[in-house]
């Protein structure tokens, strides 16, 4: 088993929580893992990415080679496209359709969405809307993770367990909101892929 995942977004959007949930599940399954993050200057509203690598063999490079990523999971639509050179020909893009606009010349959103949909394997969803319906806008990142879950090669229950473990300290309500968001994201993706 090998899964190389690019997590993308804008500084402060919570991509590292997605990495943590997958990471805990992977470690519990006894997989090897490396996860390179961006800290420092770029976190101030700049584009951020994380390379998450899971394997049943030892992982060598902290960075995924170009053209070898199995997935791009992005909490922001335009940011998903920034990492296309990393995506393999058979790879999946899972992207939020809700843009994060913190600069003046953001391209027309419909063009951005069309570019994502032009990629071979894609799931595009309004994670903000689905998250709000699930009880908290802040769990949009878990909706995205849910939408990515059918392609992760990690059992859904393991992800749920990992959410319980990570958010457990914050109380039952927070756990449930995140679980609900995760499920809603998964249901969306399963419908699309059918």
């Amino acid at each position: 088993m090998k899964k190389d995942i690019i997590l993308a977004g804008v500084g402060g959007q919570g991509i590292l929580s997605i990495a943590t949930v997958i990471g805990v599940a992977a470690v519990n399954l006894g997989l090897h893992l490396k996860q390179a993050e961006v800290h420092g200057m770029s976190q101030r509203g700049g584009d951020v990415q994380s390379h998450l690598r899971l394997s049943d063999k030892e992982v060598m490079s902290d960075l995924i080679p170009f053209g070898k990523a199995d997935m791009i999971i992005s909490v922001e639509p335009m940011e998903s496209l920034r990492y296309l050179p990393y995506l393999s020909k058979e790879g999946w893009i899972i992207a939020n359709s809700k843009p994060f606009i913190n600069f003046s010349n953001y391209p027309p959103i419909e063009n951005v969405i069309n570019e994502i949909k032009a990629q071979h394997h894609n799931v595009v969803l309004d994670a903000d809307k689905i998250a709000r319906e699930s009880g908290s806008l802040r769990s949009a990142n878990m909706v995205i993770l849910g939408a990515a879950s059918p392609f992760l090669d990690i059992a859904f229950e393991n992800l749920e367990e990992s959410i319980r473990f990570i958010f457990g300290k914050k109380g039952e309500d927070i756990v449930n909101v995140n679980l609900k968001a995760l499920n809603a994201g998964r249901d969306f993706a399963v419908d699309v892929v059918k």
Partner: protein
Amino acid sequence: MQKLVLLGDEAIAQAAIDAGISGIYAYPGTPSTEITEYVQHSKEAKQKGIRSNWSSNEKTAYESALGMSYTGKRTMVCMKHVGLNVAADAFVNSAITGANGGMIVVAADDPSMHSSQNEQDSRILSKFAFIPVLEPVNQQEAYDMVHYGFDISEKYKIPVMLRITTRLAHSRAGVQRKDSREQNEISLPKNLTQFVLLPAIARKQYKVLLEKQVPLEAESETSGFNKYFEGENKKLGIIASGIGYNYLMENYVDSKCSHPVLKISQYPLPHKLIQKIAKECDELLILEEGFPLIEEMLKGYLNVGLKIQGRLSGEVPRDGELNPNIVARSLGLTDTIGNPIPSLVTPRPPSLCAGCPHIDSYLDLNAVLAEYTPGRVFADIGCYTLGALPPYNSVNSCVDMGASITMAKGASDAGLRPAVAVIGDSTFTHSGITGLLDCVNDKTPVTIFILDNATTGMTGGQTSAAMGRLEDIVKGLGVEEEHINILNPMRRYHEENMKVIQDELNYEGVSVIIPRRECIQTIGKHKKEAKAKEEAK
């Protein structure tokens, strides 16, 4: 023992705790910050009484660590690569004094300048100082090397450098812990003049340092961190140092590398191992994350020996960090790449946060300076450096910690009026105070903005050494009280602030303006903490 998933930085911190340090010293700087933060937040470290507050700068940190080593206790000092420049005087001379208790200096380099003003390679400075280097390839090795580093530091009585780069510092992986060691008791150096670098003693001590290189090189041959892997295709031998080794091996996850490979993770370079690969192979390829240090050493100035490929000969790019694809290309292996980035994708550079006090400070300053020709604002290192970017375009320099005040002074000395400096509260206490003293002594006409957001913002909101004492420090240095102005950087005070700034720009002497409002990132955090405290009562 317990297995943890840790950032490279965190693995180093956990190892330091486990290896029995009594104190850690540092000034925040990407990518080294998380080492000290981990110790500060560790319950275990607290129980063990490990000292971990931030120092004012890397030099004070380094010297404090050296003082702890003097007493016989183990210590770690951490900094980013350019921080080592600040600590360089202490660093170079500490090799000559030698250590007593184990001492590790972590230098976190930032090739490709993700969050830095240059990509200098700390291995060069360590070679200059004759200090041994450990350069881990992964988080586990980083953990193990801290234990080993303290061993050799105490055995050979010398500080040891642990050199890491951004991708190791900020990447997580599983780490297996070792048994904890007790801290050392106080035991002063046997020779109480060891640390007295009077010329007569320094000459002796320097010879001792040179002699230590022999056993240190023997350690490099035998410790196991430098490792020779046999290969039948001897047309090319590969020397890969640090995480360059990972990028090499990434190209051989599904096959075996047919070339002999020498992994380098410890310096001084192991002569015998290098000679072995040079003798066996027709050509060498050198993969280094950083400067072409090994390549240059092996090649020499005349380059008349073995053909050596690398950053100098062009097979590997001369600058920037490595990655698996660069290594693949240098080996002539098939390169891989996905689809190109669509042209509509726009750069999204970092920017000042919405609600950041620096925005208002720059809007105030820009409005007043609009009447003058541009190019008179010398800035410094921190979030406010982002004021150089549109839409503010407010500042004209960013060189090194503290350079704003002194560069404004030099420009003013040359006749530039007005000359303005912009520096953050934490950068001011790091390296701005002495520059301000120069200005006061010369009565230099400069207007110095100390942007007081009550934190070290860029690195994530660490405590600022100036907290609540800025005016006192400035006054103590001799700035006249009527030329110390506190502003509230908010839109509704814009006109008022402009008037103060204009008056001070006209003043032919040292003037300090302190726009004061807490960082928008930490204010929320502090409110939450205060609320939690209130509820706990």
